[in-house]
């Protein structure tokens, strides 16, 4: 089923000469925050333009060629790195729809204890669960957040659940933004069935139905200002060979919403000369470090058939970590395994009998994003405490997998032999693993332009408006005052919805718009 190209979409082929775009609000970024804000603002009657650095790739372009999808949909081929010990590999979407096109589709409301903390410690206004209820409900309607249809859970996730049940651990069925997901299990490379409701197929069509214009392949260089007022942005068209083409000048009568993610939002603010009285732009980066283990079973698992991450093991949520089964295609699995040559192939040859388990840790330390030569660079030193929890979580996950029938578990650590039974897993608790030996990655970056009630501590106010700047809002996970311990997409969308409503209530469209 071929998707018609939206009428108000412009890509590099359409943007061959320099031009000026006028709008009420410019939204930079088309992922979870940008798309939700754009749709709300457009429905509210504002003239919205969206600039997205990545390309427009409709569903029919999503194939099983993992490497090609990574090159098309991910920033820097998915190989961005936060410097520190250990290095943390992180992935961000760089396409229309942003990271919602490449995430696993988990759609969880912000835990109540987190909202309480934001209210209490960061003085975020009207952020308590009851006050956010209608925003969550609205988001869930548009992205179809719900449990899976029966019969779509794959064997790898059944084994995870079986193992958790055998251990007596609590699991929950994942709420996912999907509409009749049939378990193609290609979520992280663009859903080929259109069942995952990324913003590419949900909020962006909605925004465009209300008149928003979407400009793909446009990299914003900097925001333009007049005194403290943000007046728009300067962008360049990104050509197919990566070089820059035509110049795009955007003039925004009401203001600019920045939604480039927690790595690129602070970089854009910094290179545009935006200063915060809190000096906190780019500070307090958190990223939910995660690691994975590979379990070899005797039975055929065929993990690529069935829903991606159907369950989460929540037994240890209070201790700050979650577990899930996460199938990865062969190339990606091999990429992240600490072996090579025949030793790696010996594991990979059992591909059909593998279950990949992942653990996500709610981190307790902060990194930062610095802007070097105009580009962001993340720095993050994992604490000993978080590293210990990561190792402990891995050991527990290995125990679970043995309880489900695994015969061997391959660890994400250098120089630690494979585990051959639950006793080996328990011995791991006592083993000192140096941080450098951990293979850690993430897709949840947060906190680099945090919101709150104190301009001396926070970059943005309770509604995402940047302190001491006029007409500038942030609408992505940069706003989070702390890590949230669950997948952040729905929180980003709910905050964007709430903050867009506030913007609509307070925005004043200049007289020139009426004349136009």
């Amino acid at each position, binding site marked *: 089923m071929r998707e018609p190209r939206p009428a108000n979409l412009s890509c590099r082929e359409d943007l061959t000469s320099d031009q000026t775009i006028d709008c009420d609000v410019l939204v930079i970024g088309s992922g979870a925050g940008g798309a939700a804000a754009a749709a709300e603002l457009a429905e*509210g009657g504002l003239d919205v333009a969206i600039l997205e650095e990545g390309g427009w790739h409709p569903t029919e372009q999503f194939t099983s060629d993992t490497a090609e999808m990574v090159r098309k949909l991910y920033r820097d081929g998915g190989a961005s790195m936060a410097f520190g010990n250990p290095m943390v590999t992180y992935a961000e979407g760089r396409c229309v729809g942003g990271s919602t096109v490449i995430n696993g589709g988990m759609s969880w409301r912000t835990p109540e204890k987190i909202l309480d903390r934001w209210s209490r410690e960061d003085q975020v206004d009207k952020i308590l669960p009851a006050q956010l209820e209608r925003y969550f409900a609205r988001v869930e309607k548009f992205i179809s957040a719900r449990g899976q249809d029966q019969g779509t859970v794959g064997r790898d996730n059944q084994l995870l659940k079986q193992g958790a049940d055998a251990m007596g651990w609590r699991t929950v069925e994942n709420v996912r933004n999907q509409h009749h997901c049939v378990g193609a299990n290609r979520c992280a490379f663009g859903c080929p069935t259109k069942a995952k409701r990324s913003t590419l197929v949900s909020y962006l069509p909605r925004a465009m139905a*209300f008149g928003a214009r979407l400009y793909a392949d446009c990299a914003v260089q900097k925001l333009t200002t007049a005194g403290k007022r943000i007046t728009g942005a300067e962008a360049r068209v990104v050509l197919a060979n990566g070089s820059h083409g035509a110049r795009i000048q955007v003039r925004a009568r*009401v203001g600019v919403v920045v939604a480039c993610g927690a790595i690129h939002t602070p970089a854009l603010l910094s290179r545009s000369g935006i200063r915060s009285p809190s000096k906190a732009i780019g500070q307090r980066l958190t990223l939910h470090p995660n690691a994975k283990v590979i379990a070899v079973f005797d039975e055929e698992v065929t993990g690529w058939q069935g829903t991606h991450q159907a369950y989460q093991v929540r037994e240890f949520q209070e201790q700050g970590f979650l577990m899930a089964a996460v199938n990865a295609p062969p190339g990606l699995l091999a990429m992240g395994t600490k072996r090579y*040559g025949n030793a790696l192939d010996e594991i990979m*040859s059992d591909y059909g009998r593998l279950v990949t388990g992942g653990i996500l840790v709610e981190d307790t330390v902060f990194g930062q994003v610095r802007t070097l030569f105009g580009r962001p660079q993340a720095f993050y030193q994992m604490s000993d405490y978080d590293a210990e929890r990561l190792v402990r979580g891995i050991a527990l996950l290995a125990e679970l997998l043995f309880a489900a029938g695994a015969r061997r578990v391959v660890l994400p650590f250098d120089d630690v032999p494979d585990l051959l039974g639950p006793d080996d897993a328990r011995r791991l608790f006592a083993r000192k693993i140096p941080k450098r030996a951990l293979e850690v990655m993430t897709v949840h970056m947060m906190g680099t332009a945090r919101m709150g009630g104190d301009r001396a501590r926070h970059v943005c106010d309770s509604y995402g408006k940047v302190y001491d700047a006029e007409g500038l809002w942030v609408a992505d996970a940069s706003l989070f005052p702390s890590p949230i311990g669950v997948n952040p997409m729905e929180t980003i969308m709910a905050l964007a919805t709430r903050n867009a409503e506030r913007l609509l209530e307070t*925005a004043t469209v200049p007289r020139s718009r009426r004349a136009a």
Partner: protein
Amino acid sequence: MILADFEIPRALRACVEQATRVICPDDLEPLGLLAPVVDHFEMSLRTLPVHVRLGFLAGLGTLEMGSLLYPPARGRRFSALPLPLARRWYQTWWKSPLSIFYQLAHAMKALISLAYYEQPAVRDRLGYHPDEWVEKVRQHRYQAFAEDIRRHEAELIAPDPLVKLRRPRHA
């Protein structure tokens, strides 16, 4: 950023080929996969930011020339070493206490093993055939839920009757 015109410099191509032999399993050359894997690795390098790519090239140069100082190599470059010796040299990087060598060895392995395990012949060997599965479930979705999908798509672009339209003030 994708640089469609970037190519691995000729002087380093032999080094990448040797690293590919070291990193991939023994069936690499019998399956005729050396050139496709190196081409694939080159495409991956194109997606990296310029400074990372330059760092990679500098690292490859050091891997290639560094073996001149590795006593067992007896003054030969990495690309000229017999495979068992090339493996030993690469292994010194893989376990190096110097972070920069360690990172380069691990990053190279990541990109080359991605390239190898995404080759159709290798996917075939592993029994990984997602296309048939995806096509089957996609057909099922559109046939079994056609009406519900149509309704959802229509709702998605309709004004929300439960939300009163909020109009901004005009100055």
